[in-house]
């Protein structure tokens, strides 16, 4: 039957920490990383809140020992930083016979450089090196080269806010079908004026700290992050006597087919993706101990996702929380950092709190978990829902399915 795919390494950088441990400590201590913009030159600086990583590009470049003539975007430096951690954590051997892949995800790609040099490209030669790093796949190529796995399968996914969840899904599928022995999966998205102004024009940015599943929620806070998991085949795990953090046991992807940006009121896409994930995992709704919700705190998402919870779980909706108040909404990276948070939840038998919640929504009686609590967890469900109707669910389990 379906055994699940082993997770043997993790790496992350977000507004609440630059490695797995510091992210965990911020989560359990209830310390948010959402603050005013400090690194991006935007007129919205005093109107919005963001989950910004406090290292500048220059600091990250220095820590990665990049040569002076490099053309790394912020997506690439964040991605390399987190992916290296994951590879080191899993103690990946450099055996060319082991088929190793990299699947990353981004929405912004090299837009942070493009928006800076857009007109300058036409007049000044110095910045033109970034033209080649604009496309979304550039950061993945760079990560793969840094890790010495560039000859293998390298690809990039972009399905808006569900992107990294789809990386996990593809990676797990490629291992289950025997096409790869191990794969690094995740995503990276930096803050940019492009996304800040895009979401601002859509009028879904909150001028306060985001409050998922609250009646008075005012919208999302953007964030930046990168996170990766190492997935390995059972054969490799046994051969290398590897520690396994958890398993990817189920996954589902569906399209809402309702509207280009908005989710349907009844959450058709999210309902389908959760049901598919349960089916792939061979689990029933009662088996889920905790949901790491997408919970962006927009009017639309939380209503649609909440209704989907009730359609899948009926009266018995599991304990759930959104960790977006800690990190902001990190777009393509969200499904990656929340994969790390889901595994941490399983490892520590801990449910992280949904910060900033005050009043339940009038449409239903669902209340997110507002205190960090200890609870025996076996199966955690993580949702990632995006523009274009893209809905994805991944289920993380403590043990391999029997």
């Amino acid at each position: 039957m379906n055994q699940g795919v082993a997770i043997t390494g993790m790496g992350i950088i977000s507004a609440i920490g630059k490695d797995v441990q510091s992210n965990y400590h911020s989560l359990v201590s209830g310390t948010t990383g959402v603050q005013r913009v400090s690194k991006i030159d935007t007129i919205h600086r005093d109107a919005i809140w963001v989950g910004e990583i406090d290292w500048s590009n220059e600091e990250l470049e220095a820590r990665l020992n990049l040569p002076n003539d490099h053309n790394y975007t912020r997506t690439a430096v964040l991605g390399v930083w987190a992916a290296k951690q994951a590879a080191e954590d899993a103690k990946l051997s450099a055996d060319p016979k082991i088929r190793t892949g990299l699947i990353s995800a981004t929405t912004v790609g090299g837009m942070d450089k493009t928006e800076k040099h857009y007109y300058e490209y036409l007049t000044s030669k110095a910045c033109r090196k970034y033209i080649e790093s604009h496309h979304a796949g550039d950061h993945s190529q760079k990560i793969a080269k840094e890790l010495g796995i560039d000859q293998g399968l390298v690809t990039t996914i972009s399905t808006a806010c569900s992107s990294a969840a789809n990386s996990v899904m593809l990676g797990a599928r490629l291992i289950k079908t025997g096409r790869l022995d191990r794969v690094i999966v995740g995503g990276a998205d930096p803050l940019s004026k492009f996304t800040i102004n895009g979401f601002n024009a859509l009028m879904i940015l909150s001028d306060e700290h985001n409050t998922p599943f609250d009646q008075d929620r005012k919208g999302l806070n953007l964030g930046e992050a990168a996170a990766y998991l190492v997935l390995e085949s059972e054969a490799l795990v046994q051969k290398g006597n590897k520690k396994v953090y958890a398993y990817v046991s189920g996954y589902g992807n569906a399209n809402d087919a309702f509207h280009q940006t908005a989710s349907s009121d009844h959450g058709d896409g999210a309902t389908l993706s959760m049901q598919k994930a349960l089916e792939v995992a061979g689990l029933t709704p009662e088996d889920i101990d905790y949901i790491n919700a997408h919970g962006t705190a927009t009017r639309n998402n939380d209503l649609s996702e909440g209704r989907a919870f009730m359609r899948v779980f009926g009266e018995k909706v599991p304990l759930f929380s959104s960790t977006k108040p800690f990190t902001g909404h990190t777009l393509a990276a969200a499904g990656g950092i929340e994969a790390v948070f889901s595994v941490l939840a399983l490892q520590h038998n801990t449910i992280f709190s949904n910060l900033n919640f005050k009043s339940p929504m009038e449409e239903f009686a669902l209340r997110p978990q507002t205190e960090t609590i200890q609870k025996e967890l076996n199966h955690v469900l993580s949702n990632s829902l995006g523009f274009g109707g893209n809905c994805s669910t991944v289920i993380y389990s403590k043990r391999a399915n029997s």
Partner: protein
Amino acid sequence: MKKVYIQSTGCISAQQSWGDVSFLATPLFYESKVLPVVAPNYKEYISAAAARRMAKAIKMGVTASHFAMQEAGKDNVDAIITGTGLGLVRDSEKFVSAIIDNGEQYLTPTSFIQSTHNTVAGQIALGINCKGYNLTYVHDSNSFESALLDSITQLQADEVASVLVGGVDELWDHTIEIHQLIGHIKEQAIATQTLLDSNTSGTVFAEGAGFFVLESEKKSNTYAEVVDVQLYGTLAEEEVAQAAEAFLKEHGMTPSAVDVLILGNNGDVAYDTYYDALADELFSETTQTYYKHLCGEFHTATAFGTWLAAKMLKTQTIPDVVRLNDKSTSHIETVLLYDQYRGENHSFILFQKC
């Protein structure tokens, strides 16, 4: 393990590759650095109001997918999987320049919404009300191949029975201009029929959309079987032949089993040498073909290459315009496509007659 069959094609390119016309009977040549597409009348397939707001990539993608669905006689599929190297270039340019020009003020969200890479797959899903699996790959010249890999994996494992898979890329002013500045586009306009004789660096840019309905059941009008696809992030020139042999070996074949080799030569002297390792040695006795003098270069040009392979296998003909050598073959059973862009993101796709 299930097999994967190409049931239909929908291809919009610089050639007349859609509609009821015979296979590349009247190839089109251009004297240019950037090729246009032979566009259908989009209003026949998309409402005029919707089409007005739509970027070329959306119009091409939605219409090409319509052609593929229509030919396959389907009104829905289990999955929609697309690839796009640069995504929605026009709307990205529009939104970035508006941010700069207006100092982040007075912005409307339309171009931001349409700039996301998954717009085409989302619009197709909306159009046919497909709530199934939906994915968009954005990995340079391996974007379409990634979508194909995902499709094959799911069809073989019987997770889905039908997939609409496609690749689409568009061009717009700023993108063309900056790629000209860094020499990715040739300095001088070139007659496309002489693309491989240019002896200069850079290539001829273009845009296009190629969509296919793939299913795990063979039908009477099936074009061909897609046996497998293999992706490499990087390969050295001297490793290409070895990689081709290993890929064929995995499927119990040797190079001599290949009847037609399709190569992605784009006339860039700096990088066409990757193809020479296959053309000059391993497949020197094989019928060799090429296609980028017809469709131009773009990140998802292999979707056109796939259309070419499917057409050759179904019609059992090799149009003279795609021939790269004078080796003949009495039958077309097996076709191998090899492509790379600027020395990175190499792919092999293996097709068979069915």
